[in-house]
């Protein structure tokens, strides 16, 4: 079945702006993450386990 087209008429400037912004956001979100975040989550997880152990 052919995919139904979702056609909208939009201003060219808004199209450029939103495509560029989405592209930029996706690029930033895909950047390698600092290890501090995964290290932090690991520390929090260990602390949580320790807390459960002593309860």
């Amino acid at each position, binding site marked *: 079945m052919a995919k139904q*087209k*979702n*056609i*909208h*008429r*939009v*201003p*060219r*400037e*808004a*199209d*450029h*702006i*939103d*495509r*560029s*912004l*989405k*592209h*930029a*956001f*996706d*690029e*930033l*979100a*895909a*950047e390698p*993450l*600092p290890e*501090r*975040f*995964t290290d*932090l*989550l690991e520390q*929090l*997880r260990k602390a*949580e386990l320790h807390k459960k152990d002593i309860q």
Partner: protein
Amino acid sequence: MTADPRDELTEHLGALRAFALSLTRNSATADDLVQDTLIKAWSNIEKFNAGSNMRAWLFTILRNTFYSLRRKRKREVEDADGSLALALASKPDHDGRLNMRDFMQAFEKLPDTQREALILVGAGGFSYEEAAETCGVAVGTIKSRVGRARASLADLLSLQDDEALELTDSVTAGILSNGPVN
């Protein structure tokens, strides 16, 4: 045994960092903001409604933390270092997209409220309702901010709105005409 929603946090790190960068425009401050957000989310996980939108919940925490921090340390948090433009400076441009460095430099000049509204709705895929809840304002306010942000960017980039495009891309079309596609 139910899954711990905290296991999902890792999936949102990249988007959280991108949102933090868009707010702070400073990579060091953005990373501190993400770290604070993770700690708050972890210690308040019981306030998260399982099955609801975790990204929206995390973005709300990050945003509130940003404005709280900025009230306390106004100068430091507003010390934009061009991180957004720099992060994208080496990226190639693609057909139909603006020069990324020029674009991000213009984006960084927008007021905080317009920047966050356009990021949430235009890039983050949030509905106007979700963006309004995240920002703690009315839906109409978000729509107005998104409209003003687009107009300001078009002005800054000297774009001409002299013709219209017919788009078949449902995501982009939804973002531009009727709000986000869910």
